[in-house]
């Protein structure tokens, strides 16, 4: 048998970085994809000349042309439906839905076609595409702009769902999503779009889909969150530390498929868990995480698992949105509840 030589990649040049916000990192991710793959196209409302309502696509149409960065008619089902046709016919669409709260006209296209084409044709047709949608409350948007309905999509077989909370992860997950052979929905926390900057490598890199990240080591309780709730959880952890409680924090990053190992490993160490999400409690992703802990770590638990979430009400008009959203104070209460059980 012939020995195979292992060829290592030799870096072409020293990697450089830029100091970017999440929305700038998303923009840089799309720019990188457009530069490196001629089949990538971006479709959406107001994304071309206007550069997107959040400026996520700023400058891209100018650089890559109106046939690759496309201002579409105002029609979500049309955007996703035509993306299906483009994707089965050799292109890689990145479809922007202006706000997650406006995705519902396209729900049938996503549920019945985007997520099912591979299964219905035993892999003969597939739709490698990315759907991007800003989500979440807390920026005093007009009503209906602030939904966080990730579980409508994590419940949907055939699609993956990611939700970055940092600029580095935003770009890395976006590129991984586009390279994934299956459709991926990327939820972008609009509240965190410009909240912080960090060093983001130029050029191509990926963050693996399906892998969470331990943001902070701790020993007494595991806090699990994603997206815009990471800031809330980090503040809560600081406050809890002052009370002598050591918190471990996990940023889930991918909402389907969930990284069970990182959850199990942490909860088996701390014996306690608080799950935080801004979506409504009933049918929320927290319940799936509770189930994962139940399946993997039941005998390690020292207290029932706590969920700190939005309430079972529609996301309210913004005058009351801070009451709807989990706050550091509510999370601290949850932490104290499990620690003092």
């Amino acid at each position, binding site marked *: 048998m012939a020995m195979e030589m292992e060829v290592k990649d030799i870096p072409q040049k020293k990697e450089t970085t830029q100091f970017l916000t999440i929305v700038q990192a998303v923009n840089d991710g799309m720019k990188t994809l457009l530069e490196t793959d001629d089949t990538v196209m971006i479709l959406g409302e107001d994304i071309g000349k206007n550069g997107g309502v959040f400026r996520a696509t700023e400058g891209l149409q100018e650089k890559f042309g109106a046939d690759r960065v496309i201002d579409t008619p105002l029609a979500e089902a049309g955007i996703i439906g035509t993306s299906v*046709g483009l994707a089965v016919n050799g292109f890689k669409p990145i479809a922007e839905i202006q706000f997650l709260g406006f995705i519902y006209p396209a729900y049938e296209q996503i549920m019945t076609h985007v997520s099912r084409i591979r*299964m219905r044709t035993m892999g003969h047709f597939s739709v490698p595409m990315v759907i991007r949608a800003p989500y979440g409350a807390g920026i005093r948007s007009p009503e209906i702009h602030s939904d966080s309905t990730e579980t409508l999509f994590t419940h949907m077989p055939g699609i993956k769902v990611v939700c970055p909370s940092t600029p580095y992860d935003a770009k890395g997950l976006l590129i991984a999503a586009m390279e994934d052979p*299956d459709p991926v929905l990327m939820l972008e926390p609009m509240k965190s779009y410009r909240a912080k900057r960090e060093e983001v490598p130029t050029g191509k890199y990926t963050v693996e889909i399906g892998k969470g990240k331990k943001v902070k080591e701790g020993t007494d309780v595991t806090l699990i969150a994603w997206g815009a709730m990471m800031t809330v959880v980090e503040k809560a952890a600081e406050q809890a530390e002052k009370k002598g409680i050591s918190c471990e924090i996990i940023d889930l990053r991918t909402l389907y498929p969930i990284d069970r190992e990182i959850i199990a490993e942490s909860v088996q160490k701390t014996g306690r868990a608080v799950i935080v999400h801004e979506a409504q409690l009933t049918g929320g992703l927290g319940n799936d995480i509770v189930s994962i802990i139940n399946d993997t770590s039941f005998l390690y638990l020292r207290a029932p698992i706590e969920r700190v979430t939005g309430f079972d009400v529609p996301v309210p008009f913004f005058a009351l949105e801070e009451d709807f959203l989990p706050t550091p104070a509510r999370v601290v209460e949850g932490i104290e509840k499990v620690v003092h059980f």
Partner: protein
Amino acid sequence: MNTQYPIKRIIDDEGNLIDASYQDQLNEQLVKDLYYHMHRIRTFDRKAISLQRQGRLGTYAPFEGQEASQVGSALALNADDWMFPTYRDHGAKLTFGADMMKTYLYWNGRVEGCVPPEGKKIFPPAVPIATQLPHAAGAAWAEKRKGTKNAAIAYFGDGATSEGDFHEGLNFASVFQVPVVFFNQNNRYAISVPIEKQMNSETIAQKAVAYGIPGVRIDGNDCFSVYFEVKKALEHARNGNGPTLLEAVTWRTGAHTTADDPTKYRPEDQGKGIVEPLLRMERFMKNNGYWDEAWLAEIDEKIKAEVEAAVEAMESYPKANVEDLFDHVYANMPLELADQKESYLAHLRRG
């Protein structure tokens, strides 16, 4: 609108040529091809109903009466074009090159029935209504960006024109001027709801005005008219002139599906005066000396043998593989799903 969108016909109910400009094009080869395929898909369709009645096939959606629309449109396509059918368009699919055994498999609840032959761009049948129109626009858009001369055809019924995706599909196609033909078969009923209750417009073709694209109304039981109008619309598309909306006015002779009873909602005498497409073509052939009993007997025997062989192959096809339940949802199976699969297979092994 009826006067602005007259129904285009090449032959009348008696099989007389009424548009002499087509005289030279209606040669024996074409005439026999069209008749052959209509006879073939009708034989397939009747067999399917019979199999369903015997419990050898699942619920089935028949298309009898619409053979001219399905064959004429499918034969107008080039081999490299895209087809986006609905669940009633397996006649068009078969004519375009779908596998007959697999088409029966589809109606027997088998996912294998959605897999087209290698190289054939046939999308799985649209089951929700009108969702395939944006898909066809997207696939056509891709052909335009690739710079090919390929086009796409989307099939849909009269009820589909009430759906939002009808509008979004036509609007996108027209805004981006993509090479697609929207081929409507107006069989006048969406299950039980007649066209008059579906819309307050006199025709479907007139809706094209709203998109700034050509709209043409065709006699959907005149296979020649369907064939030549679809060809024209495809040429228009291939030449970079964008989409066309075609309305083929036809009649569904039978039920919506084998689970449906049309006597509940259709007056018994409705449709009685409509000359079904094969008879019409037969009359034309007789009028023009193309009718040949020996030829008919020969193709009938050949088609019956093909259908019987397809049914036999369908019935002796290997049983559904339980692993297929899990294996085609993602390219790379997520751990969670892999565990579910493993656990279920272990359950089965335990008996």
